[in-house]
C-alpha cells in the first residue's frame, strides 16, 4: 500500500468527519452516496483517521462510527438509556408478533412508544423515564445516527445492531455462567457421594 493518500479522491471527507466526530453513526441506508465512498476508500479513510488518533469502525451490516475506549460517564449514561429504549421497543414488538430482525421496517410513532411504556412501566419508572422522555431519547438517538425521521414517523437504523449484539453477548455470558454453576453443583453432589 502506498503511503500517500489522495485527499481529493475523498470527496465526502468533510461530511464524514463532521458527522463521526460529533458521535453520529453513518448508515448506508440513510446516506448511500457517502457510504459508497466510505466502503470503496475504506483503507484510506481508516489510515487517515488512525494517524489523526481516531478509531474508525465500519460494520458490514451498513454502519460506521468513531470508537472510543475511554468512556465518559455522560456517554455511558446516555448509551444505557438508549439500550433501555430499544429493549422496551423490541420486547413490545416481539409480543405483537413482529419479526425482530426486520426492525428497520417498523414505523415508530407515539402509539407504539405508549404501548411499550405501558408494558414496561415499572422498569421505566424506576429509571425515571416517562413517555415523553422516551420520545426525547428517540430524538437524541436520531441525532447520533440510530434512527431517522420520515414525515413525522421514526424508523430505526442498522446502527441499532450494536445494541442487539451487546444484548446477545450479555445473554450468552449469563447462560455460560449458569452452565458452569450447574456443572459445579453436580460435581459437588458427586463428590459428596464418593466421600
Amino acid at each position, binding site marked *: 500500500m502506498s503511503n500517500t493518500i489522495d485527499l481529493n479522491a475523498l470527496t465526502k471527507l468533510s461530511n464524514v468527519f463532521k458527522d463521526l466526530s460529533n458521535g453520529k453513526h453513518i448508515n448506508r441506508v440513510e446516506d448511500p452516496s457517502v457510504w459508497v465512498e466510505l466502503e470503496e476508500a475504506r483503507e484510506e479513510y481508516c489510515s487517515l483517521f488512525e494517524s489523526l488518533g481516531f478509531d474508525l469502525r465500519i460494520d458490514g451490516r451498513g454502519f460506521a462510527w468513531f470508537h*472510543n475506549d475511554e468512556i465518559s460517564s455522560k456517554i455511558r449514561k446516555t448509551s444505557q438509556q438508549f439500550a433501555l429504549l430499544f429493549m422496551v421497543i423490541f420486547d413490545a414488538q416481539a409480543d405483537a408478533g413482529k419479526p425482530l430482525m426486520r426492525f428497520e421496517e417498523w414505523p415508530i410513532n407515539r402509539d407504539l412508544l405508549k404501548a411499550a411504556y405501558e408494558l414496561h412501566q415499572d422498569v421505566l419508572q424506576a429509571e425515571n423515564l416517562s413517555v415523553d422522555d422516551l420520545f426525547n431519547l428517540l430524538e437524541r438517538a436520531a441525532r447520533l445516527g440510530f434512527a431517522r425521521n420520515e414525515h413525522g414517523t421514526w424508523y430505526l437504523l442498522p446502527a441499532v445492531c450494536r445494541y442487539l449484539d451487546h444484548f446477545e453477548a450479555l445473554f450468552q455470558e449469563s447462560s455460560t455462567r449458569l452452565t458452569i454453576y450447574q456443572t459445579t453443583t453436580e460435581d459437588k453432589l458427586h463428590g459428596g457421594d464418593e466421600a
Partner: protein
Amino acid sequence: MATPKSLVAHLHKHWEIIEELARISREHLIFDDDLLLKVVARFMPQTDDEERAGVVRSLLNADILLPLSRSTSVQLNVLILEFVRGLSKEHELGLSDVLKAKIEAIKRLTDQLAEALEDHDPDLMKRSAIQLSDLLRQITQQLEQDRHAILELAEQAKSSDVSIPIQKRYRAVLEAYDQYVEPMNEMMDSGLKGAFYPYIERAEKVLDKAMEVLSARGALYTQRLQLRQVAYQVKELRRLGRIVAQQCADILLPLRDEVRQHNELSSAISALLGQVRKKGLSRSLSSKLSNETFPVWRRERRIRISLGDEIRSIMAAAQDYEPAAEAFPESFEGPCEGMQDFIDENQLREQLKADLPIENLMTWLQHRHPTLSDPIILRLYHDLVRDPLWIAELSESQTMTRLRSVKVTYNPHRLTTPHEHVS
C-alpha cells in the same frame, strides 16, 4: 353418480365459487349450509336465497360437492380440490416420504426394463417404458408443486400481515425445512446417502442400452421413439431435481436463519429486561466480558472561545493610548548611606566556624564588624544562636556590652562545634 361431462360443465359454470371453496378448504375441512350460501352470495350478489340454494343443490348433484354421512355438512370432491389447487398453484407441501417412495419405484421399474431387455420380451419392455414414463411425470409434477408450496410458505413468513401470528409462520418454515428440504437434500446428495442421482443414472443407462438393442434388432419405430421419450424425461427430471432442491434451500435457508436470530434475540431481551427489573439498568448492562460490545462513540467537545465586548473597549483604549511623561531622576553625587549595613552572611558564617570556639558571640560580632548598625548586630545574634552548625550554650552570668547606640545587658552565648561540646 354424475356424468363427467356434467361435472365439467358445472365446473365451468361456477368456477369462481368452486375456486373459493378450494381456497378456504385449508381452514374449513367441511362446509355447512350457512357458509356455502355466503360464498355463493359473494359471487352472485344479485340472487336471492332460493336461487343460491339451487346452486348449492346443483353442485351436489354434479358430485362437485359430496355429502358427509350422518351430517348435513358437505365436502369438496377431493379430485376437484386437487385439480383446482393444481391450476391455481395452491399446493400443500407434499410429503417427502411420498416423493421418496416414488423415486424408489424408479429403481424397480428400471430393473424391470433391464429384465425385459435380457429376456427379449417386447411386451414387458413396452409396459415398463409406459409405467416409467408415468412415474417420471408424477415425480416432475410433485417437485413443481412442492416448489410452489415452499415459495408460498416463504412469502407468508415474510408478509407483514398481522392476522397470521409470527410464531405460526416461522414454525411452518422450520417444519418445511426439517421435514422436506432436509430429506430432499439427503436424497439428492451426491454422496453415498443420496439415492436420487444413482437411480436416475441407472435408468438412463438402461434406456440407452435398450435403444441400442432395439435399433440393432430393427424394432418398431414407435417403440424406439417411446423409449427415447422416456430417456428424455429421465434427463429432464435429473435437471429439475437439482434445481428444485437448490431453490428450496435458497428460499428457506435465510428464513430459517432469520427465525433462529429472532428467537435468540427475543429471549435475550426478555431475560435482560428481567435483570434490569432486579438489578437496575447500570448493573445489568455492564459486565467484564462484554464490555467490548457496549455501544459507545467518540464525541469531540469543541471548545469555542469567543471574544466579549469588553475587549473592544480595551482595544479602543490601547489605540488612543498616550504614554504619560515621567521625569527621569537626575543623578547626583552624595554620601552613600547605609552601605555599611550590607553583610555577606555566608562569609560571616564561614568566619565564625573558623573561629570556633567563641566565648561571647556578641563581642565577637562587634569585634568583627564594628561598622554594623545595632539592629543588624542584634538580628544576626538572634539568628546565629539558632543555627544548627554549632552548639550555643547560654551562660548563667549576665554581662553588659556597649553597642554603637545602645547598651545591652544579657546572658551571653558560648559557641562550640558539636564534637567539642560532646567531649
